[in-house]
């Protein structure tokens, strides 16, 4: 199965990249833009076809490595191959 994982900063956590993008967008004339936040997107092919087990596996990956749960949240979608 393929997992599409989105990792975002928790609300309240400073986001220097998001802020810089926002500034650059304003400079390019996108005046109405606001609240820009940057996160990560990770696609992983997992060798697991059972949805429950796949779910458990993806969550473990996120908790252990992909996200720093002190500052980041994650969400994901699973898609059968």
């Amino acid at each position, binding site marked *: 199965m393929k997992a599409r994982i989105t990792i975002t900063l928790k609300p309240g956590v400073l986001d220097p990249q998001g802020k810089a993008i926002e*500034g*650059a967008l*304003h*400079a390019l004339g996108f005046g109405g833009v606001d609240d820009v936040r940057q996160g990560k997107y990770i696609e992983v092919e997992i060798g697991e076809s059972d949805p429950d087990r796949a779910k458990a596996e993806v969550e473990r990956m996120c908790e252990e490595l992909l996200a720093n749960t002190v500052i980041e949240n994650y969400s994901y979608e699973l898609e059968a191959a």
Partner: protein
Amino acid sequence: MSEATQKVDAPDELPEELIAEHGLSPDEYARIRKELGRTPTLTELGIVSVMWSEHCSYKSSRIWLKTLPTDGPQVIQGPGENAGVVDLGDGDAAVFKMESHNHPSYIEPYQGAATGVGGIMRDVFTMGARPVANMNALRFGSPEHSKTRHLVSGVVSGIGDYGNCMGVPTIGGETNFDARYDGNILVNAMCVGLLKSDRIFKSAARGVGLPVVYVGSKTGRDGIHGATMASAEFDDASAEKRPTVQVGDPFTEKLLLEACLELMAEDVIIGIQDMGAAGLTSSSVEMADKGGVGIELDLDKVPCREEAMTAYEMMLSESQERMLMVLKPGAEPQAEAIFKKWELDFAVIGITTDTGRFVIKHQGAVEADLPLSALADGAPVYERPWVPKEPQVAPKEVPAADGPLSSLEALMGTSNLCSKRWIYEQYDHMVMADTVARPGGDAGVVRVHGTNKGVAVSCDVTPRYCAGDAFEGAKQAVAECWRNLTSVGADPLAITDCMNFGNPERPEIMGEFVAAVKGMGEACTALSFPVVSGNVSLYNETNGVAIPPTPAIGGVGLIPDVAKMAHLALAHDGDVLVVVGKTKGHLHQSRYQEWISGKLEGPPPSVDLDAERKAGDFVRGLIRDGTVTAVHDVSDGGLLVAIAEMALAGDRGVALDADIGDLPAHRFWFGEDQARYVVAVPSTGVEALIAAAAEADLPALTLGTVGGDSLSLGAEPPLPLATLRSTYEQWLPDYMDGGREQ
């Protein structure tokens, strides 16, 4: 597998467009057909096209490059290997080379510049050296051009991210802004490495039946046609060529560096060659050609990142971070263990043969079977027609602005004379903990680890001079580089170069190239400063408009004891500044002329190589015997700019009171005459210094006294250093921020 028993399945004919797309002229194609006695396969066409491209074959430049001086007692390895090697004494040697990544950096500045840095470091560690210093020479378009800011930002972070991750300090470089580079920026990267002179690795695959080994990253469809692209002129459709951009992986290169050095400590490598432009093709052809053997590759063994790659794609891929080696038979397991430890791919993909042929097999078919002689030495060599440039007539006198100090203030806040701190602070210039002269001075200096010897490095060329007169300009580039090394107290040893020019098929461009080679050659000979490696980048033009001739020079020097190194920062109040060398007030093609009249015209300053040598040897002597407390050569912007740079670096003012004789003040202070240095000397030593200069038949003139916190000169209000500093430091950061606030 040494006999190619199978026949090549060649097509009857190849479409003309296909041949043209591969950048081969009808004549060149006819040569291939004749050589083979049949039509080439697509894979063969690809192989020949990259090997015969300007980038790999140097077909327009070769006959001229051969005229350059390449010898000297200090030279261990001249041009012909991946990098040149010079002797540093005690069994130490420096390995260095400069290379261009111009076209890729224009298309994708971050990745283009990053992979350029990665490529030049591979050239250096392929020789068995640990890279210890990087330099970069950058030419951007006018600051007003809409793409410039984006290009500066991408190129600088690309260079930084790659070098920083590798843990190799970037200790200097140069940066120019000039509208003539609007459509063709130049990104030239230089790397210096260190090794023991009895442990140099070369690329020749000497011996038959030896395993050919692939290590590093996997092969993908990256940069296919990169080498031919680098040799093609830009046009408005070049956006179409975009997907050929390669992505750099500095982390993998760091592992590759460590793995290669670990294997090199063993006695198992016969030849090694990095895969740069034209990847697997040019690396294997070069190794076989230099070793005088044939080579047969089985592409089924090549580690691939993507599925269903064809022989054509594998042979032309420019995926980064890969190396090819020929090992002693039986050494494979030992080598494999090292590469596995570093989590890198390792595969035996071929064997050397006695057939003199380049044979490529893939999925049971022979995809190519070419005589090696035709690919390397047999590549075309052109003596392209060239015309010399009309000598420049000096236009009228350059007008004077109000006062020298107010002119200085304005000049120091221009794109070309301002501080490049914004750039070099993005480069880790201290990693390896041997950087004894950081960027901001005349040359960067790193210690030979564990000794007190220093290796000084500088990159120089003044393109506006070369545009005025390519011969004098090229002489000046070599002389300035020699001077910058001298200014820190180094004995200049040798240079590498990066010859950036327009389309050589135009006789006037070829004329610039010829003049530049001649000028370089003359200067290298006069200064005993031979060329040990280099690179040529042609076709730097867009819609028929070429860049100014830009022969970038990268020089390396040796400081026997870094305790006796000189720096430009003024160090003591009360010291006296003295200019060594003759001030004539040449303002044509100067920064002052550009600023006051908005034009660069007339002949550049001429370079008297005898005077250069005399002044340089004299100043180096003063540094070695501890007479002087600060040294700076005079270059862009002339005397007053040099003095201002010394004052800012040392955070000490100067009261100027030079006797300028009959020269108008603006010519004296801003003229760009060559062969000059400003030195600071304790007041008690001034007389002796002037006398020694006279003895050496060198003009020397006192300029003023160090002290205070401003520059003062005549009746003009003094210029506070704080004011000058903010002008000098702020231009580039303000410019780069401008994108945000517009």
